[in-house]
């Protein structure tokens, strides 16, 4: 399987006091699934880590940020992709936002996944979308992604 991993799942993996954190870490560590995410993820998850630290939920944010960077570097467990045509992603995200009412970044993630992941999948290979946002996951499912 090849899957797009939304920032909500990656953030969950770092916030160990949240429900489903261990499941998120297991999914990220699963080497049988090729995993991709978008460029916005590094910014979103960094913000979530810093906010959690300020709220006293993370003891060592610098370490978490370092781990996140290591996760997203080449050879890490999640690779980062961008569509060659950013306007195509924007147009798809706009359509998704208008049809389903998703928030901007949620719509951008689904749009990028729907454009990029089918191009990377082998013929007949299942494509997945990993998110901890129920509405976003439902929209991804409506576009042919299995929920992982």
């Amino acid at each position, binding site marked *: 399987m090849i899957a797009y991993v939304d920032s909500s799942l990656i953030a969950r993996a770092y916030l160990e006091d949240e429900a489903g954190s261990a499941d998120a870490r297991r999914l990220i560590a699963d080497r049988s699934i090729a995993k991709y995410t978008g460029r916005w993820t590094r910014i979103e998850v960094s913000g979530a880590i810093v906010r959690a630290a300020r709220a006293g939920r993370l003891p060592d944010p610098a370490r978490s940020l370092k781990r996140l960077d290591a996760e997203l570097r080449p050879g890490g467990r999640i690779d980062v*992709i961008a569509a060659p045509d950013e306007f195509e992603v924007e147009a798809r995200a706009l359509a998704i936002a208008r049809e389903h009412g998703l928030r901007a970044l949620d719509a951008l993630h689904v749009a990028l996944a729907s454009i990029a992941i089918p191009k990377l999948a082998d013929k007949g290979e299942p494509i997945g979308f990993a998110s901890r946002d129920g509405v976003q996951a439902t929209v991804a499912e409506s576009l042919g992604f299995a929920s992982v």
Partner: protein
Amino acid sequence: MNAWVTDLLDVTVDADVAEDRQARANAKAAALGMLVVYDDIPEYDEETLRQGEEELRKLAPEILRILNEDRSTGL
């Protein structure tokens, strides 16, 4: 376990597996101009590398010897 050693063992395990799905998809993503590589993320800091060599010397000295030989031959 040290990050460098963990990655090294992961790669070794992956090489034993039938195929590395991520690497194959990455090749396709790179060919399509979709793979993003951050140039501000260092692969490993010096301290991690130093500690990794120490750990590996205890775990598998033969692997460390082979790695050092590869480095000396420029492979």
